[in-house]
């Protein structure tokens, strides 16, 4: 069983490494360094202006530590098929879970240590703590995280009977009590408290797990959600096949389709528009990029920078919409329907035009609000109009025709 976890972990780490390489590309690392540098500078400026004895300083520390204590979930790496194939091995699964907790421990404790490292100057300035005090608090935090993960492990079993223990509330409460003791009383007491709790949880679990069943369904669901969260994050940077978009009815957006008349030539506009609005993949992309663009443009001033940025975001969206054309290629009716391919392409061009125009308009409004300058507004509008026209009417059909030819 330990080997099983080892195998899975290796596979898992290989996969994560593959995606992390894609996420941390040069561009992103560069941006991240800048971002961290900026944050660090801001943090040190705040520290300089702090005087000891502020009433809210321990509250901030409490919030940060309690929230961070919840970070780092129990990574079991179990799969849906396990509840069929590993069911006969249920007792032996314990070793597997223990190995899984050890791995989760490593990641979670790294987070705790880094957080305390960052928080240390704050504690020392605002609370006048000594290095020893900070170190003791750090140990208490680590022991606390250990017991929280023990509770996660326990919840894999039905140790609390049929009724699931209100784990979530208990974990927060425990964290708040331990950390608050550390901040307002003394870290030494907090450490003792954390050690006692950790020991108690360990003994209690040791006495109970053997008589209990594994909560397969819940555990698989938790793990699936955890992985989905990770994949979603990667999906922001690259295509992840495991994240297939979900479909939402979004009835409140049905008014968008009223302009599309049920004509033969618009068969695919009918389909594309609904697919775009109700699918989360592409609509999410458009909305995300538009919102980011709007935020960015709101803070950017100048003659040419806003124009350039607006154009860049429109290009990014237009470019990434192209694969949507092939979205329905695996539905056989896309090929069987007696609709000329020209109509399909025209419908798609219309859709792209509509989306890009909307984005362009929104970005333009932000540029106008941020700059309040006739010239910038005029130039932006002109550039956007030309770009939308070129992207939708010239570039898109050309690219799709070329892709089509390559396939044939």
């Amino acid at each position, binding site marked *: 069983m330990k080997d099983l976890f080892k195998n899975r972990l290796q596979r898992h780490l290989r996969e994560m490494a593959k995606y992390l390489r894609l996420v941390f590309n040069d561009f992103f690392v560069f941006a991240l360094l800048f971002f961290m540098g900026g944050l660090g500078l801001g943090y040190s400026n705040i520290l300089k202006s702090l005087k000891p004895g502020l009433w809210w300083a321990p509250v901030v520390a409490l919030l940060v530590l309690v929230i961070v204590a919840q970070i780092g979930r129990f990574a079991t790496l179990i799969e849906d098929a396990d509840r069929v194939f590993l069911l006969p091995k249920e007792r032996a699964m314990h070793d597997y879970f223990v190995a899984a907790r050890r791995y989760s421990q490593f990641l979670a404790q790294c987070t705790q240590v880094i957080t305390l490292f960052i928080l240390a100057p704050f504690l020392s300035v605002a609370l006048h703590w000594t290095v020893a005090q900070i170190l003791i608090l750090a140990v208490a935090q680590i022991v606390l995280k250990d017991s929280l993960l023990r509770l996660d492990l326990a919840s894999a079993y039905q140790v609390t009977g049929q009724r699931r223990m209100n784990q979530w509330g208990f974990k927060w409460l425990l964290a708040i009590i331990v950390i608050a003791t550390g901040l307002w009383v003394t870290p030494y007491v907090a450490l003792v408290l954390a050690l006692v709790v950790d020991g108690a949880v360990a003994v209690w679990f040791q006495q109970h797990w053997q008589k209990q069943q594994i909560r397969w369904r819940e555990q698989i669901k938790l793990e699936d959600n955890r992985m989905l969260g990770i994949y979603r994050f990667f999906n922001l940077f690259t295509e992840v096949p495991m994240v297939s978009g979900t*479909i939402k*009815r979004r009835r409140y957006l049905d008014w968008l389709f009223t302009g599309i008349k*049920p*004509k*033969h030539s*618009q*068969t695919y506009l*009918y*389909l594309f528009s*609904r*697919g775009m609005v*109700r*699918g989360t993949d592409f609509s999410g992309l458009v909305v995300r990029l538009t919102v980011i663009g709007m935020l960015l443009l709101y803070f950017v001033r100048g003659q040419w920078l806003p124009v350039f940025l607006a154009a860049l975001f429109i290009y990014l969206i237009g470019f990434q919409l192209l694969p949507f054309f092939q979205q*329905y290629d*695996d*539905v*056989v*009716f896309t*090929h*069987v*329907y*007696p*609709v*000329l391919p020209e109509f399909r392409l025209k419908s798609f061009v219309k859709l792209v035009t509509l989306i890009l125009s909307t984005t362009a308009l929104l970005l333009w409004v932000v540029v106008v609000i941020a700059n309040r300058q006739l010239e910038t507004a005029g130039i932006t509008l002109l550039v956007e109009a030309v770009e939308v026209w070129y992207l939708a009417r010239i570039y898109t059909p050309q690219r799709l025709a070329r892709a089509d030819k390559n396939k044939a």
Partner: protein
Amino acid sequence: MALEVSHVVGGYSQIPVLKDISFDVKDGELVGLIGLNGAGKSTTINHVIGLLTPHKGKISLNGVTIDQDSQAYKQQIAYIPETPVLYQELTLREHLEMTMMAYDLDQEKAWVTAHDLLKTFRLDNKLDWFPANFSKGMKQKVMIVCAFLTQAKLFIIDEPFLGLDPLAVNDLLNLIEARKKTGASILMSTHVLDTAQRYCDRFVLLHDGQVKTEGTLSELQAALPEAGESLNDIYLSMTKVDRA
């Protein structure tokens, strides 16, 4: 002569699955395409609906090939796939509307037909459902409703009987019968041989990418007198010859 398949060699890759296949489907005729798994039934159907292009040979529908006028060719075809495929983002109502748009049907008239069909297949209260909420059988019914909404000259039905409840099978057979009377042709592939025997006018027996034999049941019986009475017996004996 509605559908004419002559000397078609074809398949998914350069290696042909179909080796020189010829058969036809006449107006108002229901032809059963019979064969084992992998005999080439689906490949044949994919060629007829234009998903695959034959390496050699010709497929024409009332004198039109897909190369001459794909629009006119496809306009005459309605297809019901074996595994139902639906647009995940469209409701049942929108699937019907999209079919009407694609086949350029008169919306008002088509909706009258649609409501009849929906009632028959007990889908009339599910117009606003998404495909994700349908069971497999229901999806299959949606496919049937969409296909019979059209005024197609040729219906191509890939294994319709598995997954449908007995009532729906019966309703489907009635629909087929009614369309046959108006002169439409049907090409149907199936494994359910006793149903095929009762309803098909003619059979095309495919084996290993070749047409082993074709004809009405009595013609088949005459050709293989020692095989037995039923389509099942005939088919089994035919494949046995090959195995020996």
